[in-house]
Each structure stands twice: as C-alpha cells, then as structure tokens.
C-alpha cells in the first residue's frame, strides 16, 4: 500500500506562491473580500508565510519563508478530535476531508498545530463569470463529497494532496490494466512549483524520490516534537 508524501526543499523554494495559487485553481478555494481577508479568512490551502520579517528579529539574519500545505500527519491531531469522522486518515496515509459530513464544529482547526484547516465562514462565491473557471472534478462516494467540489458554507476544508488526481491516475491505470506509475499522481502545487522545490511520491517505495530525499541530512518535519509524524517533509536551507 502506498504512503503518499511530499518533500519541500526550502533551499530551492523562492516563496513565489505559485503553489498557493495552483492549489486555488485546482481545488476551487474561493476568494474572500478584502474585509474578510483582513480577518485572516483567506482560503489558501497552501500558504506561504514570511518568517522574521518584522521588528525585533536579528538584523543580520536573512529573512526566511515557509510554504505550508497539510502535513498529512501519520498521527494527526485533527482526526483524533473530529466527532463525526468527517476527517479521517485513508489507507494510503492521506488525511481526507468529507465535506458532506462535517458539522463545522472546528475542533479539528484548533487541534491542528499547523493551522492548515480552513473554515467556510460564508458560502463561497465567485463574482460575475469567474465561476466559469471552477474545476469540475469531484470525488464522490456514498453521498459523501471530497476533492475540489465546491464546499458549502459552514464546513472545514483543507489540502487533500489533490486526492482527485490520485483517483484520476488510478482510473487511468485501471483502464489500462496496470499499477499506477510513479510520477502519474502529482498534486497541482508540485506540478507548478517554480523553484522545482516540491517532490511527491510514495514513501513506501524505497526508490521513490521522496523516500530518498527524506533520508537526506537536511530532512526535517515541522514540529517534530509534537509527535504528529508529518508526511510532508521539509529539507533545510543552505
């Protein structure tokens, strides 16, 4: 069974936010009004943050940036607390989000130490014609809803490792009667990365690029001490 994982090389990342926006267009995250944005209600599943740009930091040090999708923790605090299993960890290690079931209690959002979960404060909307660019893909099952399908108001959403792309790749492989090949399933943010800083693959496969990079000396995980065991792995700068 595959264990999907992403590696992000911070040495190559140039904080361009291409990943953020690729994710938006792939996954139909709505634009919020400037007033909403001021409240921090933007919906970018993969945000890029400046670190120590502000006053009070060490002047001589160069600024740093962090790009942050969901960590797809192997021990995910979000999953533990969800009362209705609207978020759950799948067989292949992806932490799913079921929009049809979520009751919007936001327990997961406060439990996730990485702040990667986003709540639909209002029903998403697109102004005059912009909705035409929405991605029609959606993952369905037993009346449940995942993937880029438009989310209703009041539910939580987050990075899914572009789960629908996995389904697509798998459907293609199945149609051709074969196993899914490495490189066939690539999330949108990985595909677009301008610095070629993002890698994706199967941690279970020792030959995959992510397995190999995860062994590098530079490899680390965010909040390793929290014991969440992220499958999104970073490589240090320098």
């Amino acid at each position, binding site marked *: 069974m595959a264990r999907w994982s992403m590696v992000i090389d911070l*040495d*190559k990342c*140039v*904080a*361009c*936010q*291409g990943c*953020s*926006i*690729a994710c*938006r*267009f792939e996954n139909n995250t709505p*634009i*919020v009004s*400037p007033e909403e*944005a001021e409240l921090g209600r*933007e919906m*970018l599943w993969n945000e890029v*943050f*400046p670190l*120590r*740009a*502000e*006053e009070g*930091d*060490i*002047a001589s040090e*160069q600024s*740093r*940036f962090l790009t942050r999708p969901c960590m797809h923790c192997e021990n995910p605090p979000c999953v533990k607390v969800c009362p209705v*299993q609207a978020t*759950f960890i799948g067989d292949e290690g992806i932490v799913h989000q*079921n929009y049809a*079931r979520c009751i919007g209690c936001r327990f997961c959002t406060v439990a996730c130490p990485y702040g990667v979960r986003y709540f639909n404060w209002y029903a998403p909307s697109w*102004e*005059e014609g*912009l909705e*035409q*660019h*929405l*991605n029609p*893909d*959606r*993952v*369905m*099952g*037993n009346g449940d809803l*995942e*993937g880029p399908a438009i989310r209703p108001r009041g539910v939580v959403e987050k990075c899914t490792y572009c789960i*629908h792309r996995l*389904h*697509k790749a798998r459907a293609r492989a199945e149609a051709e009667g074969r196993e899914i090949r490495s490189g066939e399933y690539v999330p*949108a943010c990985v*595909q*677009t*990365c*301008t*610095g*070629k800083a993002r890698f994706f693959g199967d941690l279970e496969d020792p030959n995959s690029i992510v397995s190999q990079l995860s062994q590098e000396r530079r490899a680390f995980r965010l909040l390793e001490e929290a014991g969440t065991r992220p499958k999104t792995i970073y490589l240090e700068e*320098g």
Partner: protein
Amino acid sequence: MMNETLSRRKFLRLSAGVMGSAAVMSTAPRLLNRLASDPQSAVWLETSTNERIVPTVCSMCPSGCGMLARIADGNLVKMEGSPMHPINVGALCPKGQAAPELLYNPDRLTGPMRRTGERGAGQWEPISWDEAIQTVADKLNELRQAGHPERAALLYGETRGQMRGFLKRFMEAVGSPNAVSHDSLNIEAAKLGIYLTQGIYDLPAYDLENSNYVLSFGASLLEAGRTPQRTVSGLSYMHRGRANRGKVVTFDPREGVSGAKSDEWISIKPGTDAALALAMCNVIIKTGRFDSDFVHNYAFGFQDFKDDDGKDHKGFKNFVLENFDPRRVEQITGVPATTISRIAGEFAGNRPSVAIVPAKGGLLNGGFGGVATAMAVHCLNALVGSLETPGGVQIQRYPDCPDWPELPADSAAEAGREAERIDGAGTVFPVGRYAYQAVADRALDGYPVEAMFLYDANPVYETPGGQKFIQAFEKIPFIVSFATFMDESAEYADLALPEPTFLERWQDDYIEGLGYPGVALRQPVLEPLHDTMNTGDFLLQVAQKMGGPVAQAMPWDSFEALLKDRLQNVGTDWETLTELGVWITPGYRFARRGSEKWINEVVGADRRRAPRDGRFDFFSRELSCILGDLSDDELAALNPGASGDALYLPHQEDVIYEGGEKEFPFVLNVVTLMSLGPHSYNANLPTLQEISGMVVGERWGSWVEMNPETAAELGLQNKQQVWVESPFGKVQTKLRLVKNIHRDVVALPHNQGHKAIGRWAKDRGVNGLEIMNPASELFTGLASFTNTRVKVYAA
C-alpha cells in the same frame, strides 16, 4: 561523543525496548484515529465530459512561460506550465496560475466603443468594428493627405515576437517614426550599458546552469528581474540541481525575497552600484586575477591609450586603480571594504562567474549614472573573461525570421519617417532610443500629435508623474486605446478597441533568457468571450481600408496568416508549432574569441559608429562618437556627472536627487512584487490581490517599508498610517517595519493605487509613481525612477 562504555548487548536491549515502545505507540494512535466503519467504501470521480489541452504562452510578465490550458466542457479551468517550454519546464508562477481570472474577468471591455461625453467622464457608446476600422483609416489617411503622417504616434508596452516589428512597420507604412516602446521605463539603461561596452543592443542571457558564482546588482532576480522564471529555474539548478553548489550574492538596499533567498545579501546605498562594481574591478586588477588574454586581445581601453589625434586617454585599469580603492568606496556605498575585497576575490576565484546587469532596479536613477552602472557591472564580466563562455554571459539569439519585405515606394510616408521623433530619442536625448514618458512633455511643448495609439500601454498610470499625460492628451485630438481593460489612459481615449486577452488570440513570442533561439506560440485556447479583435488583425484591416501603399505594405489577410508566413523558417512546420506551442533550437553554441562569428554576432555587432572589431569597450568608443558630435555647450547642457575620459569609462555619478536630504531623508524605492508585477491588469485579478503583500503579511493594498531603527527615531509605529511625501506630492499608506532594508530607503511596492482598470484594482492602495520625479534623464531619455527623495510622517 558516543558513550564508549555502552556495550553491544546493552545497545541491543536498548533498541529492543525502544522498538517495543514504538510498537505500542504506533498502535495507540491507530485506535484513536480509526473507526470500524470506513466512511467511504465505494468512491468514484466525477468530471467534465469533454476535455482538451491547448498550449499557449503566458503574457503576464516577460518570462513568457509556456502554458497548457485545460479546457473542460468549453471552460478554461486550469493553467499548467508546459513541460516542453525551456524557460519554465512545467512550472508556473502565481500570475500564470491566475490567468483564468484574467480571461473571465468581469471588468474586461466587451466590445469596441466610442467616447460620447467629456474625456475621462466615462460615457461611451458601442460601435461596430467596421466603423472603428473606417474611423481610424480615415484619420490616418487624413494625416497622410495633409502631409503629416508623423503626427500619428503609437506607444506600446511589453511585446515581443512579430508584434513588436509589426507595430513599427505599420507606423512606418503610414509614415511615422513614432512607434515608441516603453523600454525607457525599464530595460533601456541595461541595454545601453551592454551596447556602449559590448556593442550589442540587447539584454544578454546568462548561463546560470554552468555558473559557479553570481553577483546580482539590484536585479530582483527571484521576484521580478527581467525574466523571473528563467532566473528562478537557473538559480534553483545552481543551488541544488548539480553536484557543486554555486553561490549567489545580491546587492540591494532592500532584502526582499531575492535577497533572502540568495546565499548572501549585501545592503547597499542606493545609486552607488557603479562604485561598488568598480571597487571590485580594482581588487581584481590589483590582485592580477583578471583574464589577461581577454583584456589585452579582445578589449579596448583597458590600458591607457593614445587616440588618432595623438591625445592621451586614461585606460580602465588606471582609472579604476586610481579612483576606486575599496576603502574609499566603502564611504560611498556603505559596503565594508573587507566585504568588497572578499566578494571580488570569490568572484574572480570561482569562475565561471557572472555579474548580472539589472533589468531596471538600481539603474534608472535619473542621471547618466544608470547607464554607467550597467557598464561598470558588465565590465566585471569582461574582466573575468565571462563573455561568451559557459557559465558566463551569452548573446540572446532569435529564431530565423525573414526580414520584413521592403516597404513600397510612398513619398508621403518616406517624408514622415524622416521627421523628428516625438519622444526626442536620438535628438533631444542623444544617446537614447526610446523616451516613452517624455512623449507627454514633448506633446505639451508643442510637438504636434494628431493621432495617438496606445497598445498595451497605460502611460497615465505607469510613468512617473503620469498625470501629465492627461494634460498632454488634451492636445491630441484623436486617441485610440487597444486595451483589454478600461485603464487610466483608455479613460481619456476617443476609441476603446479592446484586444482579446492573450488566451484568446494568435501571437508569437521569442524565448529570451537562455541564449539559444526559440519561439513560442499563443493561440486562442477558446473562442474569444467578447466582441474583441486582435490588434494585429485590426491594423491589417485598417491598412486595407486605407488602400494604396499602406495596404500594399501590409498584405496579410490576418495576423494568424502573418505569423504563418513569418515563422516558416524557425525549424518546424505550423502544425507542430500549434501542437507543441513552442519550438527551440537548444544548445547554445559559443563563438570562439576573435572568430568571425564573434565579430559578427557577439562583440560590437550592433555598433552604429564605433568599429565593429570584436573588441569589448572598457572605454566606450561608441559613446565618444555619439557625444563627439555635440559642442561643448551642448554637452554641458546635458549636465554630465563626469568629465573628460571618465565620461566614457564606467564611472560613478552622484545621484542628483529631487528633494534635499535634510527635508526628505529617504530615497523612494518602488519595487516590483512577484504577485503583481508592474502590469496594470494584474492588480485586477482578485487572487493576486489576496496574496500581493505576502512578504510583510499584507494584502489588498499598499504599504511602505521602513527600517525599524529609523522608525523608532521618528517615533513611528508598525502598521500605522503615514504620509509619504516628496517634492512632487504625497500619498497616504500603511507603514510596515522591515528589518532588512537600508536605513536611508523606504520601499513602496508597485501596481496598487489604480484609478481605473476594474473593481479589484480601483482605489486600492497608492501609486508611488504619483510622487515620483517626472523628469527624463538628459542623455538617454530614461525615466527617473530612483532619484526621488521623500519624508515619512504620521498621518
């Protein structure tokens, strides 16, 4: 150190224990995370029924990345980077990703319109394209009949490929020399710097993949730069794509993302890059680590020399040794002498190394000093022999396109073409080739303009003190804007003739930044959404309507046909080009020093007056030829920042600031962001607005960056509202304290503060250009982007 007494047995026991507890620990979370009933036993994917992928080229910035458009059920739903395109190889920055918001933007112009009310009052009526064509054709014919075709002028923005030549040809066919590129707002200084030294009038390419050491002078390589995706890919490869990691050093008064992501960021006093580069030359010469073959055999003016009249001239070497000792330059630049020496040593010692001439950044400082800076930086490349070498500077080659056919004999047009240029380039500004922003001054000074065309140009917004264009427009009876949006300039036009977005039209693009030639093709990814017309098609139809020699000069049926015709020799057929969207001739072939190719293509090829002898000019012979025509008085009127030989050698000029240092303590630095860039319509893509201020955690607006220590002295607080005031005006915005910015500089990101364009761009933040020195540089006609001083105080 490991505890030596830890025996093997103990170690085994230990690890067994660890493993045991690991087993417990890995089941425990399972219990917490799992539930017996899997919520999704049967899962399927629903998607559109009809999909296709169309290749095209991004036009949101000059990188020109290849794109693949995913069309699902007739809608554009996603952009991906084209893996075939050599600039981005599958990558796409946020602007490219956001392109669907451009296509479906609700504020686009939906059809041709004629103004009905006062200029700028916003009253328009729809007209038909035929009517528009007739009107324009009549107007141009009227000018031709009056014997003044030169009174038609066209201002154009960022455009490459056939369109650039086509616009110029159209104007020439009509009989006007006035096709004015906006180069004087950006790359002109750099181009001139390369031209006056290497003799090539173009931006070079840099072989970053093979370079060991990169110096960047005020080129925001990772955020803006000339071709951001090209430099991002190159530097990413330099850092991690190969065995030995290269080093990138950025000189910039503001760190920004480019500084942050460089191996070293060095803060520099603005406008002093030339001194810094020359101090590094000084160190390299002193320590003898220059490429002596190159400087002696393929360069001119390294040593002192005598000219034909027997007059003694100072050579680069002695000039630099005498004037640019690092300790002295430390006083000028604020960069410690030890740092200068160290970086110079590293630069010379880690060849191939390359110094990047900025596209704009620190150059446009309002005096000839900007060009001198480009020359100085480029001399670093020459000194270490990095011209036309792997890992060094390359010449940008272009696809093989036939020359445009001879223009038909047309006396009216020929006379017009000889007229003085509206922008004064080559006359008022003896060294310049374009002086875009000066068009307003010249029109106001009485140069008669009777028809003005704006193609991808928004001078009211994008030039320093652009408001003067509104006054200038009053003198121009007929103005046509081809803009896709009702931008600040189009608001004053008589006809608004919208072009479809780049996603809906035929256009080609030359691939720049890799050296080797390549062409990429834009094609309509879907039928145009609105009643728009490719400006190429429009001008072709106007020419037909005008008839006579103009029609003869423009014989193509459509712009698409023109492209087919002109791209027939690029190496592939039209079908392949439309299918792949890109064609390259990969592998840059370096010319051997002194070879015929070297002389014809690499050094001196574009010189108009100085010898094309394959010698790199440390002492600019071209410049001395150009300025040699001027009388002493004329020269003095240009207020040169250096005299004698120094003027022709790369030198440091003191920036003449507008606004005294006492009253206006800060240099205003308007910077380009990755998210918005300088192009107006980017500000009307809501997604880009949302991420626009990531570097400081702002969004949907402007801010001014200041060093916290300076702010503390002024008693200003982070995030408070402040006035930024220059001698030309003031704007109010939010103060953001940023640790890594020069204490004498405040930075204001560009491309906010629009007065038009659309709902998301309008009335959001401030436009730094409104308070900028509107003057043009006297030698070259460059805009003055960096010689304005401001004060900042609480609002």
